[in-house]
């Protein structure tokens, strides 16, 4: 059976808990230290976005596989305000929170597959997969 864990994000501690859960699973699947850092960082960015913009939500971390590859999939789900202009938030340096604007475009580069699905007033779901090479 493949492992799936989820972490509720409703405080800053949730961000840390999600990171630690992600690092643990990435290590178990066999990712090296660089990819462990990439996966952990991606989780941190997604969890912080939930906390910052939606106040609460969940991070799901699971092992995935297809024909001959294994990987780790992160899914970030919230029922927050949603994203008005998805193209805009994927631009480097765009921020509405005074941050670096590196979060979502960074996650896309750190991971292999990336999908974002957002509806204004209804929430946001973001999935990202890193495959074991």
């Amino acid at each position, binding site marked *: 059976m493949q492992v799936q864990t989820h972490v509720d994000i409703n405080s*800053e*501690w949730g*961000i*840390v808990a999600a*990171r*630690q859960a992600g*690092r643990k699973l990435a290590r178990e699947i066999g990712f090296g*230290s*660089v990819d*462990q*850092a*990439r996966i*952990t*960082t991606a989780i*941190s*960015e997604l969890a*912080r976005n939930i906390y910052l913009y939606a106040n609460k939500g969940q991070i799901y971390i699971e092992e995935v596989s297809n024909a001959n590859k294994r990987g780790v999939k992160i899914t970030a789900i919230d029922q927050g305000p949603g994203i008005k202009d998805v193209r805009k938030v994927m631009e*480097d340096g765009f921020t509405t929170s005074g*941050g*670096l604007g*590196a*979060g979502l*475009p*960074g996650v896309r*580069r*750190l991971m292999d597959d990336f999908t974002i699905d957002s509806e204004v007033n209804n929430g946001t779901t973001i999935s990202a997969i890193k495959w074991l090479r």
Partner: protein
Amino acid sequence: MRIPILKLRDYLLISVQVELDDKTALQFQEDVLSKIHEEGSRGVVIDLTSVEMIDSFIAKVLGDVVDMSNLMGAKVVLTGIQPPVAITLIDMGIMLEDVPTALDLEQGLDRLQLELEG
């Protein structure tokens, strides 16, 4: 959680050994600035050897500490950034361009001396 800050002559030495949550990172920022003010420190070395992950928020906090300390008249050097952390930061497009860095604490102190003389 508080990160301990050691004083060595004119310098402050900090080794970050905890998993940085947002609150701890912001508290740390304030603590460094108050300690510079209290001790009249001219230089600060922040060692990141034990830090396994720096995301965009923590990168911003660290970059800001450097700029804020500069405003006060103290130089900050970041040391010991691990290979996975450096790779991840560049992947993310975070360059920390104007931040002085060194391989380890020892070279960080040398770098600080140069910065202060130059």
